[in-house]
């Protein structure tokens, strides 16, 4: 069966190298069909079957544009999440599906799509940059990555996260819970090509997308070498700064 991966709004959701996530998946799934849906087009998931819906990082105005395009399809997105369709929303894309986004410096307070009960506060002069390492249900090895963001997400800790950090902050500096997870929906504020950087996570996602047979990981040796080198450094206490600690 040919898998379909839909990239939403790639003309604006293309920052920080995150689109390499889909490039890497397409290397692992050479038969997969990649659909690129523009801002002024109706998403394929609205009327057809899609196996993975992807939305990458956006500018602040880009977030508002994406929200305006997704709000009309809120019920369909909920239906797909509930029925187990895979979603991957990276960096600030996840924030679009929350209750609201508040940006005092840019002078707006806008509702999000409203699928998840969290809110986002954007501080244009308060960019946070730090490392993250943690555990993700089902993934055999730690997930490693980075945050570099203007925003922090506030929510009830009861909303399941994508991962629980062992080092580095979660949705905000007071929690180890990072991102959002509901069925096969993954939302994470990690920045950059998370799947390229985490071969074990990608292998797990591939198995979930295509269980029988599970496709092999592309560029496996190189990906593992890069991951293992980074993990070794992340385990080194000297590479962590005080601001990367969760204020328990």
């Amino acid at each position, binding site marked *: 069966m040919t898998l379909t991966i839909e990239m939403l709004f790639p*003309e*604006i959701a*293309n*920052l*920080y*190298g*995150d*689109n*390499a996530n889909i*490039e*890497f998946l397409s*290397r692992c799934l050479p038969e997969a069909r990649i659909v690129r849906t*523009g*801002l*002024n087009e109706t998403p394929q998931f609205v009327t057809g079957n899609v196996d993975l819906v992807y939305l990458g990082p956006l*500018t*602040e*105005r*880009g977030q508002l*544009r994406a929200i305006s395009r997704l709000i009309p399809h809120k019920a369909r997105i909920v239906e797909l999440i509930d029925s187990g369709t895979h979603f991957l929303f990276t960096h600030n894309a996840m924030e679009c599906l929350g209750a609201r986004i508040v940006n005092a410096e*840019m002078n707006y307070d806008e509702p999000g799509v409203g699928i998840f009960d969290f809110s986002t506060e954007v501080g*244009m002069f308060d*960019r946070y*940059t730090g*490392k993250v390492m943690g555990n993700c249900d089902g993934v055999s090895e730690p997930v490693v990555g*980075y945050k*570099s963001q*203007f925003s922090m997400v506030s929510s009830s800790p009861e909303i399941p996260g994508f991962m629980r950090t062992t080092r580095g902050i979660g949705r905000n500096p007071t929690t180890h819970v990072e991102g959002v997870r509901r069925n096969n929906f993954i939302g994470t504020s990690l*920045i*950059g*090509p998370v799947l*390229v950087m985490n071969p074990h996570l990608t292998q797990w996602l591939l198995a979930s997308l295509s269980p029988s047979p599970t496709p092999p990981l592309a*560029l496996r040796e*190189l*990906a593992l*070498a*890069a991951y293992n*080198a*980074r993990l070794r*450094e*992340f385990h080194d206490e*000297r*590479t962590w*700064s005080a601001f990367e600690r969760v204020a328990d």
Partner: protein
Amino acid sequence: MGKCAALALRLIGREGTHVPGRIALWVCPDLLAVIARPETVIVVTGTNGKTTTTNLLADALSALDLSVSTNRAGSNLRDGIVASLVSGVNIWGKNRRDVAVLEMDERSALRVLPQLAPDIVVCTNLTRDSIKRNAHPEFIAWILTSAISPTTTLVLNSDDLITVSLGGDSNRRVFFGVDPTGDESSEPSGSAVDASICPRCDERLQWVFWRFNHIGRVRCPVCGFTSPVADIRVSPVDSLTGLRSLAINTESVSVRLANDSIVNVYNVAAVAATLDVLAVEPTVIGSIVESLTPPPSRFADETIGGVRLVRLLTKGLVGVAVSRAFAHILSVPGRKAILLAVDETTDRFDGVENTAWTYDADYEYLADPSIAAIYVGGVRRHDQALRLAMAGVDPDKIVLDESETRGADLVVLDGIDAIFNLHSNHNAVSTGDAVHGKLRTRLLELSS
């Protein structure tokens, strides 16, 4: 208070650094607003080319017999800008310069422009820069627009849709651009295209021509929006005469530039546009821009024993700069070997570099059959190898070594026409110089 600060600093005499500026601002926090200033104050900003454009503009104004305050040798942050202005006042606090040409870091705009309210702001371009510091160019454009005074005249790159969005309704805008050569594409390629949708209707834009990143001219197929027409335009080189046409509003003069790289042509166009705003006659502008010589670049290209040895600053963490370096490699003919060492050394001892930026860079240029081998040195060599392989480079062509310099010993020179020594800013001496020295020695030995 401002005069006192200026006097004290004039007596200290420490020009060309940020120190006097910092002291002056400590003594007089609103010094930028109260210091005696030249009749004309010009600020030059942008992601790329602001240093060169500042220097060229200062040279151009000096050629007009104007006395110029500039931070050519100093910092482009607020302290350095203050220090430059302080250097332009006498011990009585009186201004003694005709004009100030001040390079400004884009992120410093809110700390500089509201108080300074310059007469002219020149913006060379706004493209992706450090993910950590600059986020995305729309953020930088927002900072600049928030800080620009409504009375300031803006000199903007018409081929950069993000730059042309700067300012408000009341700002006068003068646009400069570089005409297409015909070699450009009508479809963008690469990772960092930041102006893809129409600012009016969100439709995907069509490219009249695409040069690199989001630089080029666009039109919207739905609402008719187009890039602004440049008031000052530089034509391609005429193959017969070697001359370019410099169109200034309705007039045109022929010029021969000292450096025909597209980057330099944009910088010269920005200078010409600024001179036009200052009401300099087009014929005078033409003769001045012909006399301008860009400062030596961090670039070296020599041939030893028939092999080209090219040293290229390849600014790590900044994908668009790396893409330009890779594109240059591809433009050089022959069979090539590359030494790549672009780790961010500041992240080496107390951090772990985020290599997401490498996926904002077009490593795909290096997946070319003309490239025989790529020697990658440094801590992040495994990330680099993975990025190269993702770009389509044959993993068998990639040689990894923890040392940033050992590649100069390992590189196989047989059958190689050109070797590229790519390093970043921070390791320019420790790695760039060392590699260059080793390669020169090996090539000289081979040729003797």
